[in-house]
């Protein structure tokens, strides 16, 4: 942080200026009854900014841009959400923003060590199993929501990061293969495929076909990363077989899709403006009504339409803030995802994880925005970071933490242990093994531990020196 201080100071200043300019627009163009409402919103936004920035500064790490961008986007969303239908602070969204920032740090700490996470795979599978059981037992039928005393959570959202993690953690075990009938297969890949089938089956059964493309995108990235992973030794015939299988699955899904899905694929929203096409028609009218600069925060009318703050939130923002501002807000999210590509991950685990997360976000954003604009069938998924929804925001925060882990991975976790081993092997050798070895005594001490094959090699090499 401190080596790059000037850049971060610029980002922080512009972050604060961005939020202040948005609050200025609310002040001049917003629809609020009392200045108190606006003052509360301003206090919440600037307070969250300051707390977030100070918390980031206190925690020393290699990358801060993702933290700052997450903070910026969440506060922008807080302003958007607080202005729908009139300016008032959305306390619920503020709480979920804080939860999202905390889960970001949690995701970072849990996933940065690829050696550790490799040994925790069984627990990740366990978490997925528990979440699936929760969906089956507590959602009350073919639904994805659990409602408890006024709170609704969507456990399927929490499956996303777990699924990405098992895709990433299993890639480094690909070279360990066992023979099943006539084929050599990796047990980890089999487990991952099993989990994929269960998750896809669950989505199909719960009729949550909006999330299915997101999981499919993650799975596609995991497959491509496996093809790129040299130690996997995947032959061209396997790649061709996978491509054919993918096409067959797509055709089967197309043919076997339920009737309501088939209808939605071919629906003409303008023919049924007050029926099945109502939401999309209103969303499109809202975008047109807003124009480039919008009608002003809280001045729109889309807040009367169902799911204005989640499924068609892009249209609602377009109506109130204008297409220009909504487009740039989405661009900021995309820039956050592309900054990850500027510093490519150094391990296949982090690369697979990063690719999966970026694919999930891009798929979800495309489904939401293009669905709202009637370019693809309307699926009803949330817009990451912007739509209201606690489960979605917390998951998004966790996934940004995973992205951060890919940028700031932990490779030195075993350094102390290795130094101890090296010290036991070469007693006079201290910290940096290869730099110090040339001054080492040729024979180790008599109380050296039992030598492994590797140690034998080292000994022989030293002996030859």
């Amino acid at each position, binding site marked *: 942080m401190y080596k*790059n201080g000037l850049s971060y100071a610029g980002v922080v200043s512009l972050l604060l200026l961005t939020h202040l300019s948005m609050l200025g627009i609310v002040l001049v163009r917003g629809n609020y009854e009392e200045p108190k409402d606006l003052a509360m919103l301003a206090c919440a936004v600037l307070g969250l900014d300051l707390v977030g920035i100070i918390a980031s500064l206190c925690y020393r790490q290699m990358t801060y841009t993702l933290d700052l961008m997450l903070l910026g986007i969440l506060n922008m969303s807080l302003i958007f959400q607080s202005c729908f239908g009139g300016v008032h602070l959305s306390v619920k969204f503020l709480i979920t923003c804080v939860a999202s920032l905390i889960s970001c740090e949690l995701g970072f700490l849990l996933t940065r060590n690829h050696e550790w996470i490799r040994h925790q795979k069984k627990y990740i599978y366990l978490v997925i199993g528990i979440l699936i059981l929760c969906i089956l037992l507590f959602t009350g039928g073919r639904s994805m929501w659990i409602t408890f005393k006024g709170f609704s959570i969507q456990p399927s959202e929490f499956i996303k990061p777990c699924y990405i993690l098992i895709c990433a953690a299993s890639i480094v075990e690909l070279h360990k293969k066992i023979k099943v009938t006539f084929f050599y297969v990796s047990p980890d890949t089999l487990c991952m495929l099993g989990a994929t089938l269960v998750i896809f089956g669950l989505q199909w059964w719960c009729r949550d076909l909006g999330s299915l493309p997101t999981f499919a995108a993650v799975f596609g990235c995991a497959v491509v990363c496996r093809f790129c992973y040299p130690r996997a030794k995947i032959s061209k015939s396997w790649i061709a077989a996978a491509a054919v299988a993918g096409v067959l699955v797509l055709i089967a899904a197309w043919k076997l899709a339920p009737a309501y899905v088939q209808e939605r694929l071919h629906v003409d929203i303008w023919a049924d403006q007050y029926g099945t096409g109502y939401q999309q028609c209103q969303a499109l009218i809202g975008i047109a009504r807003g124009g480039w600069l919008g009608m002003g925060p809280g001045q729109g009318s889309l807040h009367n339409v169902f799911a204005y703050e989640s499924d068609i939130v892009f249209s609602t923002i377009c109506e109130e803030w204008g297409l220009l501002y909504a487009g740039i807000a989405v661009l900021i999210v995309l820039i956050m995802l592309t900054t990850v590509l500027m510093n490519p991950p150094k391990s296949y685990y982090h690369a697979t994880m990063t690719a999966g997360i970026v694919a999930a976000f891009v798929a979800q954003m495309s489904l939401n925005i293009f669905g709202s604009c009637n370019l693809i069938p309307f699926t009803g998924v949330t817009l990451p970071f912007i739509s209201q929804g606690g489960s979605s925001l917390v998951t998004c925060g966790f996934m940004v933490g995973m992205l951060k882990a890919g940028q700031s991975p932990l490779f030195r976790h075993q350094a102390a242990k290795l130094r101890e081993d090296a010290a036991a092997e070469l007693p006079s050798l201290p910290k940096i093994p290869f730099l110090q070895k040339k001054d080492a005594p040729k024979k180790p001490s008599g109380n050296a531990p039992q030598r492994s094959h590797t140690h034998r090699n080292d000994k022989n090499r030293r002996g030859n020196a």
Partner: protein
Amino acid sequence: MTELWEYISGLEIPDLILCAAAVLILDLFAISVIFAANRESRLCQKRWEKVSSGVALRFQDASYPLSADEILLGRHISADIRLADPSVSRYHAVMTVTGGIWSITDLGSKSGTFVNERQVQHAKLIPGDVIRLGSVQLTVTDHTGQSQPRRTRSKPSQPKKATVKKPQTRRPQQKGGTKRV
């Protein structure tokens, strides 16, 4: 253009100025983030050099920095450092780094992996070590490109260098010298 001008002139000035300023600031924020991310990536690269001890592989006159925690050496097209020689297996050996120490592991190759002319299944590497895969000889060097010749020991039989084609996938001495996903 006339319509656009009519549209703009129909707007109230404060609204237009405010919106333009807000959009401009948002754009500047995006640009500053890209700039900071670029600086960060350079710092991360330096950190990686520390983690990986700045080790590179020298093959003939070319040097290949090891820019991932796992580098496959082999004849296959997907290998990180491709050695197009028939004596090298398709998936010959893999180099990994842990805690700043590089090691090489043989992946069951036909012709074996040799470090300083001793056949190994797994061995730690230090600058100056000479790796031989089939008839291809590679030297481990540090970030300055210096190997330490005194680390190489007894004179082995000279490996066949003439049959080795230059690795095809990478350019030497470039930042992205080895393939990363």
